[in-house]
């Protein structure tokens, strides 16, 4: 009973945070609501006793959004961004079509799921017997889920290579000037150049 009440509270807060995140005109406020949503999702993971997942949710998303936040400050001029009317009008229809598609996908996937099948045999008792949530999670990740795991790591590697290439290009264009501003996090390459 307590769990159900807490679930409803956190779920409502998460959805409210998500709505606020996309409706705020101020980008930083939007980012903060996004963090708020992720924290509530982490709380729901805590309720399902997936402690490791809950904590990793906070580490990964809080860290990722922090980087996004720094980029917003460094790269976008907030005031002009807020005043700007919608310039990408054609994107609207594409966005609408894609969101309907994603919603349909969610409905199809979730319609086929009952609570017992969602558990997949991972009852709290079975997990405790197998040596705790972290261990069960790790074994699942590196046995059954190895392929998606490796695919995700390749995608991340590609993103990293892309980021490094962007930084490199900027440096050759700027000549002898440093490629990072004071206060910004320099890439290891930029530091190497400096020292």
């Amino acid at each position, binding site marked *: 009973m307590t769990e159900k009440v807490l679930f409803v509270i956190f779920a409502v807060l998460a959805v409210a945070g998500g709505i606020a995140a996309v409706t705020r005109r101020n980008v930083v406020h939007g980012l903060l609501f996004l963090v708020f949503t992720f924290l509530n999702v982490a709380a729901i993971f805590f309720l399902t006793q997936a402690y490791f997942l809950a904590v990793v949710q906070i*580490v990964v998303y*809080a860290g990722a959004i922090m980087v996004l936040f720094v980029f917003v*400050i460094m790269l976008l001029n907030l005031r002009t961004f807020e005043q700007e009317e919608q310039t990408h009008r054609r994107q609207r229809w594409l966005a609408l079509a894609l969101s309907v598609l994603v919603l349909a996908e969610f409905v199809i996937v979730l319609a086929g799921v009952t609570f017992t099948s969602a558990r997949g045999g991972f009852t709290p008792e079975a997990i405790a017997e197998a040596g*705790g949530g972290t261990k069960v999670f790790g074994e699942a990740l590196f046995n059954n889920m190895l392929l998606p795991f490796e695919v995700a790591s390749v995608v991340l590697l590609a993103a990293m290579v892309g980021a490094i290439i962007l930084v490199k290009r900027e440096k050759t264009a700027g000549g002898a000037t440093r490629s990072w501003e004071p206060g910004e*996090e320099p890439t290891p390459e930029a530091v190497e150049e400096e020292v």
Partner: protein
Amino acid sequence: MSDPVAQLVFLIVKAVAMPLIIITMVAFAIYFERKFAGFFQARVGPTYLGPWGSLQSFGDVLKLISKEDVIPLRSDKSVFKLAPYIAFVPAFLVMAVLPFGPVGGEPNLFGHRFDYVIANFDAGVVLFLAMGAIAVYGVVLAGWSSNSNYSLLGGLRAGAQMISYELAMGFSAAGVMVMAGSMSLVEIVDGQKGAFWEWYWIPQIVGAIIFFIASIAELNRTPFDMAEAEQELVAGYLTEYSGMRWGMFYLAEYVNMIVVSGIISTLYFGGWRAPFESWNVIPGPIWLFLKICVLIFIYMWIRWTIFRYRYNQLMSVGWKVLLPLSLANLAVTAVVVSVVG
């Protein structure tokens, strides 16, 4: 009283008592910081309020509360007000997973089992890292919302520095997790049974040193207090804050210091265990308290002895020295543990 009710009562007592104890410790940590700073610089430090000036912090809090609450006109007011709380709260949440005595076993209090930890779950170390990630927000948002160049630079420096050193910190803590075979702080203490030479600080000496250095950067203390560097940035992200809002950042720094000391004691120095097994007649919380006090003294000693690093030096130490070393430490630990058993 039935057992679930008793456990609930214990839980509430622990959850209320822990923050109060920490706040009291903070008051005296600030007093000792000022006293030590005085001694290191051949001064006397605070002397007026209470015996040897020991009540100085309480006077300071009264002063801070009664000061005018200045909010800059062009600042982002809601975020400006929110930031001190974001800096303040995560530090306390970490205390929930820190064991300060034996957990489990026979009933030991009024016929019920009293666990010396608030929440015992299998990802305690990761929770500590997660709360570190949240605490960055307090600092960066404070810097951004003030709408001042010094604040923004300080906030961004703090953000970059804390994100960089978190990596080295996480990897060095992973060495301990591999040795204990668990991420639960309770089980990490259980893995360090016996006298002080059986604790993890000897096999994990590299990890312990990296963790300690990284923790100074996480705490934004000298020699890594680039975020507040007075000579360059006035007071960094704190420039526009005054009164109790400034006081909350100040308190958060000391709460964090106590919590990180507790985590280092637990990961590397046996947590609540006594240095010799026969000394375990003295209860666990006292040993943990003593270990935290020693570590806090070392933090203060370093702060008033070593000069501030330059910003790019800080970054190159973090990325080029500490991170590779912590990775090597983790790799060696993993190989040794899997070969030896």
